[in-house]
């Protein structure tokens, strides 16, 4: 059999009975002791007072030996209080002058309580066998000289009866208190239980999702009645269920704006609050109901907010994922928290998870100095903007990139998370370099054309006059040989000048449809034998359906010749030169590639190889105009020339020409 747990009612009953009983007992014990002591003290005081009074009044009577009057006096004293058992008076010789005993005076009492000299009273506790008595003795004195003594017998037994009667009264009062307290407790418990059950039912209703609960009874007093207010715009006006201090936006002049949290303290000082607010449970019920209403509104707002957040999240996720730049978030430890798809691709990862788990923010920097510099700036300023660095991919490839990062702090001000964008600018940088190169070459071309034009005419005159003078001089003469030397070097100069004019596209170009494969073939036929002799193999691979290009066949052959000769010079001993053509159908372009297995070009001189007169050969072994002339010819044909080179592995020159329409 299981015991039922006591409810609040049972607990209140038990509590009340226990408290009243305990309090009663706790009070009764010390009260009994104190009352007994006080009563005894009081009785003794009273006895002493009566004895003193009797002694004072009996002075003259004792002196006058008026025994009748003495007897009357002590009889009156004994009759005056039921606690007094006897009284008697002794003279200065200890003889009994008068007493209240019947059948003679008890001999023992005459000497049982002597008064010490100098004392004003003496109390002796006596046990007569029938009752307990305090014998109170007071001297009858005149001018300090004792002329007798008054003795009064105070019954302790009778005092004890009074004390017992008092204790019975206390006991009965405690019993009555318990009954009254239980009745009052029952009423109180019923009220409390009913209201607590209401709250319990309401909380269960809320747990089931129903926020339309009513826990407090309808209001009996309303603020607008008490304030004689008629402002219908006030939300509290006409409200029958909710207290005004729980409502937002009330218009009472004493009200503070805001919700309960802001205005609560002010409202509690308002006389309306003091007048209509109920007890703690009433307040709890009302606040519970107000809280439910507030919760309902908050949930509604939250739902609206959640939808807005979802829309916003989708929007920003779209922007994030759709960005052509790498967008990322990293925590303070430098670990990536999130990266978009562009970032995954840029860093050459297959999926986001492997990137987030294996790659850190510091890993993307090819140069550690770049990372340190950006990290310091982030710590000091909190952000970096468009800072260029060399990005390292998972595969070890490097890319030129711009990074912008900003860091957000938490409530303590410490950096919590950093978010940023990395833009791959490799292509743009290459383009810029090419544009720079083109611009430089164009400037050089203009300069060269001017110089060549100015120099070409004098050279023609020098050559013409030299040839005229040669006709007049006999062969073999010293003068003839000197003129021949002048002619030879003038021709060399003229060749250089013509090359410069070609670079500057100042030479006459006769454009026609050119079969690129055939042009290349003619060049290869010229050099193939010589190359084979020196151990350099030439491999040719043509695109059979290569469209023709519109251009000057001779100049194009000169371009191919220059590229092939450069390739040959790059091969120190033996090697291979691969020449191929290709048709880029999408761009409608014809591509000529010349690849060698030579020494390659150092990266630092790569941007300068198309500059006029730039050469790596010793002085006198080259003009440094080959590639610059080729560049000029290709640009004249609306094409482009590019180079990829890796030191030790060779170089690849690609000439792109638009196909003829």
């Amino acid at each position, binding site marked *: 059999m299981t015991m039922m747990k006591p409810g609040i009612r049972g607990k209140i009953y038990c509590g009340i009975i226990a408290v009243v009983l305990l309090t009663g007992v706790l009070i009764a014990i010390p009260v009994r002791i104190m009352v007994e002591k006080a009563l005894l003290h009081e009785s003794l005081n009273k006895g002493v007072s009566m004895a003193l009074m009797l002694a004072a009044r009996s002075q003259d009577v004792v002196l006058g030996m008026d025994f009748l009057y003495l007897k009357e006096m002590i009889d009156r004293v004994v009759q005056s209080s039921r606690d007094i058992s006897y009284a008697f008076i002794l003279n200065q010789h200890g003889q009994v002058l008068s007493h209240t005993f019947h059948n003679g005076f008890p*001999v023992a009492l005459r000497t049982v309580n002597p008064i010490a000299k100098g004392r004003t009273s003496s109390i002796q506790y006596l046990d007569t066998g029938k009752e307990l008595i305090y014998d109170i003795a007071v001297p009858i004195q005149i001018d300090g000289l004792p002329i007798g003594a008054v003795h009064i017998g105070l019954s302790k037994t009778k005092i004890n009866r009074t004390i017992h009667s008092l204790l019975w009264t206390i006991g009965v009062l405690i019993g009555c208190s318990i009954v009254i307290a239980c009745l009052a407790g029952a009423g109180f418990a019923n009220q409390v239980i009913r209201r607590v059950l209401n709250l319990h039912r309401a909380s269960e209703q809320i747990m089931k999702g129903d926020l339309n609960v009513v826990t407090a009874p309808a209001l009996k007093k309303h603020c607008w009645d008490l304030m004689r207010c008629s402002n219908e715009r006030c939300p509290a006006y006409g409200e029958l269920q909710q207290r005004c201090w729980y409502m937002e936006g009330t218009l009472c002049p004493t009200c503070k704006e805001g919700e309960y949290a802001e205005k609560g303290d002010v409202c509690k000082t308002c006389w309306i609050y003091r007048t209509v607010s109920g007890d703690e449970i009433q307040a709890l019920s009302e606040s519970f109901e107000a809280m439910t209403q507030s919760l309902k509104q908050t949930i509604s707002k939250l739902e609206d907010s959640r939808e807005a957040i979802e829309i916003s999240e989708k929007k920003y996720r779209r922007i994030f994922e759709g960005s052509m730049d790498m967008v990322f978030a990293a925590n303070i430890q430098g670990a990536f928290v999130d990266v978009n798809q562009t970032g995954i691709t840029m860093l050459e990862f297959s999926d986001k998870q492997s990137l987030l788990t294996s790659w850190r923010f510091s890993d993307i920097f090819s140069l550690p100095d770049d990372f340190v510099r950006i990290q310091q700036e982030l710590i000091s300023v909190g952000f970096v903007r468009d800072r260029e660095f060399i990005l390292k991919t998972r595969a070890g490839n490097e890319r030129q990139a711009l990074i912008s990062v900003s860091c957000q702090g938490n409530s303590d001000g410490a950096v919590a998370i950093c978010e940023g964008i990395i833009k791959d600018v490799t292509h743009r940088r290459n383009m810029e370099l090419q544009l720079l190169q083109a611009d430089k070459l164009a400037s050089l071309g203009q300069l060269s054309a001017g110089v060549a034009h100015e120099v070409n005419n004098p050279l023609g005159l020098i050559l013409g006059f030299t040839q005229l003078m040669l006709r007049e001089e006999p062969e073999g003469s010293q003068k003839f040989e000197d003129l021949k030397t002048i002619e030879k070097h003038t021709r060399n100069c003229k060749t250089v000048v013509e090359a410069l004019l070609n670079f500057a596209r100042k030479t006459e170009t006769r454009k026609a449809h050119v079969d690129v494969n055939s042009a290349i073939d003619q060049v290869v036929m010229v050099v193939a034998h010589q190359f084979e002799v020196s151990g350099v193999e030439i491999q040719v691979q043509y695109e059979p359906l290569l469209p023709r290009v519109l251009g000057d066949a001779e100049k194009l052959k000169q371009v191919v010749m220059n590229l092939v000769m450069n390739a040959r010079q790059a091969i120190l001993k033996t090697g291979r030169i691969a020449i191929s053509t290709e048709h880029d159908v999408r761009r409608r372009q014809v591509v000529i590639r010349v690849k060698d297995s030579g020494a390659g070009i150092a990266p630092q001189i790569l941007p300068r190889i198309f500059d006029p007169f730039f050469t790596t050969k010793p002085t006198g072994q080259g003009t440094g105009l080959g590639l610059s002339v080729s560049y000029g010819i290709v640009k004249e044909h609306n094409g482009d020339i590019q180079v990829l080179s890796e030191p030790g592995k060779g170089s690849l020159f690609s000439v792109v020409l638009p196909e003829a329409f």
Partner: protein
Amino acid sequence: MKYLLYLWMVACMACVGCSNDHPPQKVDLSKREPARIVDTDDAVTYAYLPQYSHSVSYERHYLLVKYLEEETGYRIRQIFPDTFDEHMRMVGQGKVDISFSNPYVYVKMAHRYGEKAFAQVVEASGDKNFRGEIICRSDNTSIKTLEDCRGKRLIAVDMTSAGGYLYPMSKFYDHNIKRQDFSEIEFSPGPGGKQEKVVLAVYAGQFDIGLIREGTLNVVANRIDISKIRVVAYSRYYPGWVYSARKNMNPEILQKIKDALFKLSPDTSEHQMILQKAHFLRVVPSSDAEFNSVRKLMDVVGIDLDK
């Protein structure tokens, strides 16, 4: 809660600790005896005319009685008559050997019982004679002279009082104001304290004028504000209190008592307290003839010595 319990325990222990109950002393009340006073008839009796309460009389004379016992070697017992009449009656009955009384009572006792004066006391004034006072309330504006006392309510100590009736009344007679000229004459109720009661009656407004012996106001000074009492007039000086002896008293005993009384001197340190308590300076010899002036005065006032 724990501290509350401790507090309660301490309070209980304190209450118990303060209890001063000792075990009671066993007494046997079964053994009884009748009340019995030891007979003292062999003692020389000494009575002080009860002009004051017994306790005042005792307080004033117990040292003197003790002194006389020591000086004479006789047992001397002070007795306390309740009234002047009882005093005189006891003298007449031979119950009083030595009487200390006022001259009025003495004259009567001498006339009736043959009492013989042998000494007089010299009071604080330095004179063996004294006088009476006629008093009224200080704020009684209707009494300024003796003439104003006509028709007023009067209270005196006793018909047998010298200072409290006879002497001040003689002052009225000197001004031709007779007893019947007062609207009311009352005497102080007894027994004892009669002089004081006169002052208190006037002080309370019960009577307009009172007759007392000089010095009484000082006696009540510690009970009332005596500034509220005004003395309207003083009488002439007449003989003061007198020691007298029973007619048939043993002369040898009487002589020893006389000697002892005359020996008292304020200059002797052992006697100073006795005399101070008794309210006189010394005791001087006297004789019956010195009280003739009183006898004459009683005759003038119309007092019959036989009544």
